[in-house]
């Protein structure tokens, strides 16, 4: 699969590796996934794409190159020779083989403020608490590790590698500070083959989608697979962009979970992070019920999901209800997905239609889970609460035409605001037909331009507006096919919608 369109924004990488090869200005850079950690001395902002710019040289001169990239290999072509790059996830290494050319890895300003060391075993570049460690199995390395005494760091890191009998075989390790580099067992081709197979297997864990969108599905699968990050707890999350930021939220992981066929896998994402922020978990769990996916989920997993819902429900009840315990509010702008929304014109704290819809779904999901694990009394309580909340949502926030926000203290209503005014559609058939119908007829295709769009589309479909839902999803898929995917999380949602709505 050609991943070249992804190379600038997301790069070439591997689920289990920090190594990423990314393109900037026609050249490739070796980079690391963002760790979000600082350095002792304040570094200046770097505009570099990564840690090392890769150049090919011949006779001491820079040699232009072109490249191709698939999910398993990057191949560089010059008029004198070529280079191949693959990821050896087992060894936490980048494998680089070249023939006919010299290689230069130039950090330019990217590694200012760091220490480097040229040792008999290899070249070490300290990155935060770890090391970028180059070892040559074939080829001669030249590296200046001069310590710039008055500048508190080493000379700018430039590694030159010249071929041995025309060939270079270089390993770039990602190592913790004191670890010896692990043994290399596989060839570069074996690594590429394994990685391709891993991605294929990952693709198969996603929900089925119509064959006409297979090309898009492959690309989404690659981005989702690449963007995995293991947390210190051992759980994995999928990031928006592994290169740029390691930040994510529990609600984002709930959206990610939508794409997985296997409910246990989906559940792992839902519980991967502490349940804070937007209570999207209920929505995600109900999607699993809709697919009848809970049959094979273990009781312990179900209990974990139930705990998450309990914690979320309790938090919003204790911290974000006013006089009406069935109406919840955003205390701050930035608690909402859209802090600049017209919703907030009536002043905080604001009872918002989207928030209350999430919590209604949370109650429904909790009721379904309690039935699943046979805590019937709890199910009754959750349904009672759900019904009261639905009444309160409609009584307070529906004006006959639109949903609005409302200042909890003054009762002042805010203007209807796209897409938040449509969010109660996520209640599907729980929303009265008259209300759902009024909302459905106003929705445009571009609803999916909004981060919350996927919720609305699912709601439309569940409420019986399948034609509208299909129209929107098809339009979104076409747009992504034309313009590319901007985020693996969005890609996950597209897969989920294509499965639910188009199959």
């Amino acid at each position: 699969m050609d991943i070249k369109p992804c190379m600038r924004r997301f790069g070439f990488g591997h689920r289990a590796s920090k190594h990423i090869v990314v393109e900037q200005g026609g050249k490739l850079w070796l980079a690391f996934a963002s760790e979000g950690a600082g350095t002792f001395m304040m570094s200046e902002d770097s505009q570099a794409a990564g840690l090392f710019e890769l150049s090919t040289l011949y006779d001491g001169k820079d040699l232009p190159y072109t490249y191709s990239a698939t999910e398993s290999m990057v191949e560089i072509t010059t008029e004198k020779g070529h280079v191949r790059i693959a990821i050896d996830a087992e060894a936490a290494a980048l494998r680089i083989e070249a023939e006919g050319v010299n290689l230069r890895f130039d950090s330019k300003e990217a590694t200012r403020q760091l220490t480097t060391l040229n040792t008999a075993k290899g070249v070490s570049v300290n990155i935060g608490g770890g090391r970028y460690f180059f070892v040559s199995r074939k080829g001669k390395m030249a590296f200046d590790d001069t310590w710039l005494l008055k500048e508190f760091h080493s000379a700018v890191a430039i590694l030159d590698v010249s071929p041995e009998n025309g060939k270079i075989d270089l390993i770039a390790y990602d190592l913790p500070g004191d670890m010896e580099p692990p043994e290399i067992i596989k060839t570069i081709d074996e690594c590429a083959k394994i990685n391709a197979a891993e991605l294929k297997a990952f693709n198969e864990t996603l929900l089925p989608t119509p064959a006409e969108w297979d090309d898009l599905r492959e690309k989404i699968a690659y981005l989702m697979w690449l963007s995995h990050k293991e947390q210190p707890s051992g759980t994995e999350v999928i990031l928006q962009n592994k290169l740029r930021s390691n930040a994510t939220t529990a609600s984002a992981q709930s959206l990610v979970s939508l794409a997985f066929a296997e409910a246990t896998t989906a559940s792992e994402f839902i519980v991967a992070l502490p349940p804070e922020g937007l209570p999207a978990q209920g929505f995600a769990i109900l999607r699993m019920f809709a697919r009848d996916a809970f049959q094979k989920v273990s009781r312990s997993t179900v209990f974990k999901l139930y705990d998450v819902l309990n914690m979320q429900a309790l938090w919003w009840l204790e911290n974000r209800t006013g006089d009406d315990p069935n109406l919840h509010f955003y205390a701050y702008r930035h608690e909402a997905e859209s802090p600049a929304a017209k919703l907030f014109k009536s002043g905080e704290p604001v009872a918002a239609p989207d928030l209350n819809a999430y919590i209604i779904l949370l109650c429904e999901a909790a009721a379904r889970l309690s039935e699943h694990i046979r805590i019937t009394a709890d199910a009754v309580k959750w349904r009672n609460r759900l019904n009261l909340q639905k009444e309160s949502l409609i009584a307070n926030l529906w004006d006959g035409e639109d949903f609005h926000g409302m200042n909890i203290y003054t009762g002042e209503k805010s203007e209807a605001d796209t897409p938040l005014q449509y969010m109660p559609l996520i209640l599907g058939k729980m929303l009265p037909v008259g209300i759902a119908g009024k909302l459905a007829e106003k929705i445009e295709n571009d609803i999916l331009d909004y981060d919350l769009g996927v919720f609305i589309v699912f709601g439309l479909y569940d409420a019986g507006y399948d034609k509208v839902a299909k129209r929107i999803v098809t339009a979104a898929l076409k747009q992504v096919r034309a313009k590319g995917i901007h985020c693996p999380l969005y890609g996950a949602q597209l897969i989920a919608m294509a499965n639910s709505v188009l199959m």
Partner: protein
Amino acid sequence: MFGTYEKFNLVRAEYARAGSTQYISEDYNRPGVLRLGGNRGGDPVIATDFLFDIQLTQNGAPVSYTYFADESSICLDSKDGYVEIAFTDRAHLRIRGDGAGLRLVLRSAVGGGARACRGLYALSEGCGWEAEFGKYGKLFFRPLNGAFLPTYVYDDAAGAYSAVVFDFLPDAETGVFEAAIHEYMKEPFPFGEYEDFDDLVDETKDEFEEFTLKYPNPAAGYEEMYRYAMWTVWSRKSIVTEGLVEPMILFQVAYLPVAASWQQSYNAMAMLEDPIEAWRLICTMFEYQDPVTGRLPGMMSYAGGTLGMQPPFQGFALEFIISKIGDSFLTPEECERMYPKFAKWANYWTTYRNAGRGDDVIEIHSPNESGWDDAANFKDGFPANDPNPITFVILMMDSCARLARGCGKPDEAKAWQKRAEKLTKILIDEFWDGEKFVTKVKGKSVDSFGIESYQPIILGKRLPQEIIDKVAEKLTAEGEILTEIGLASDSMKSELVTFGISFVGGRVVGPQNMILTVGLQSAGKQKEADMIARRFCDHVKREGIILGYAPYDYYPLTGEKAEEQIPPAITDGWPWSSWTANCFLTMCGSVIGK
């Protein structure tokens, strides 16, 4: 202690309190304007968005004020009124005013305006307002008397607040107000009844006085500065969080709020009247020891995270404390608890930093591992066989021997003893060139004149007398390393000396003066130790508790003027730091003759 008309103000010192994450500093660029900040987010005061201008208001308009701060509160005075602020160690500060109000204006240090604010709202019970600041946490504003008025403007296009202002207003009739501001990350610290403001002030005073009892009396003539130094250490005591599981002493409050590994041991050395607390501080970093390699992190902060590595200073600190007050605090249980950890840390160096000669000689890979970031003896690069970390490893080995004995492991104690003696012999045979200890890179001695060449004096009487005498001679030769204000980090005869932004590139720094004077003292050179310590401590009395000082305003080697200005930056030449404070305390409390 600090004030508009006092010898020291808050431009370079940072006003804080033990167990609080909040601080007040004076804006260098706008003299007379105090700013309230918090250090949980980890950003320094010069680069944070979470900073409030403190304004005194009368009839709603800001008025100019002077201020005075002591350990218990800071008072802002104007002609017709005053406001007083007292920090607590219970995640809140208290404010009171009479004839004036207090205004806090959120103003980023880096042109970000009010973007740190992510929202605010009035709690339904009418008890106050909560404001959220993302990674910096939350503030809860609770008026106790008088009124509270927030003003905030959201810029939809920018997606951020453009203005956030909090006003505490006096009661219209009485003219007074009182309030509390709570700070927390997620869940609020429960509030309820607040103690009387005067009682709070008295309690804080008492707490500080209690803290001062951890230190021996200072040498005569240093009493006042000793108190400043004790306050500096006390006020940098951290809270306990996920990142810092035990209270530690932060390096600085506003510029670099980190708990540096070896600095905890520096602090311990000064607390001779409380060996339990001293020992606790030495042991704190072992909470984060890598279970596989034994490595200790270089620094910890509220955000967790660890960067680099610092020398194994713990053995030196422990030996010093025991030499002064004995080892009764090292119970068999404590020895049992800490011996494996000390052993693992010592073996970390001889394993992962082994020079590959088949013995315990180590090499370091960066200057941070010696503690001296820009020392001249590293001008030939790395890996370097540097006598200073080797010396610290020797003292770690001796400490391991002591702890092993203390928990009934005499054979292991003997083995450590033997290793320490062998390494000492190698240090003397291979790293002493007749004049100084040398750093070696690729077997070649580095040609440098820095003070680090004499640091192995901390081995005291383990060294032959001729080495002790030579070191003492070198350190007391005027115009070389010895300056009028103490030992410079590099010889004034070196071409590499700089008094600009540097750590040990030529400035006179507290830690080196403390280490060398303690070393001289332990080697029997009390007169020399006393003289040097006095020079340094006298300068601290004049200039305040800064990490490093330029000894001259010209370079003695060339006669050239030393033009470099030290700006308000995370640099050792600007803010007050607990590191020089603890060094001052050790020198005044234990080195300078009484």
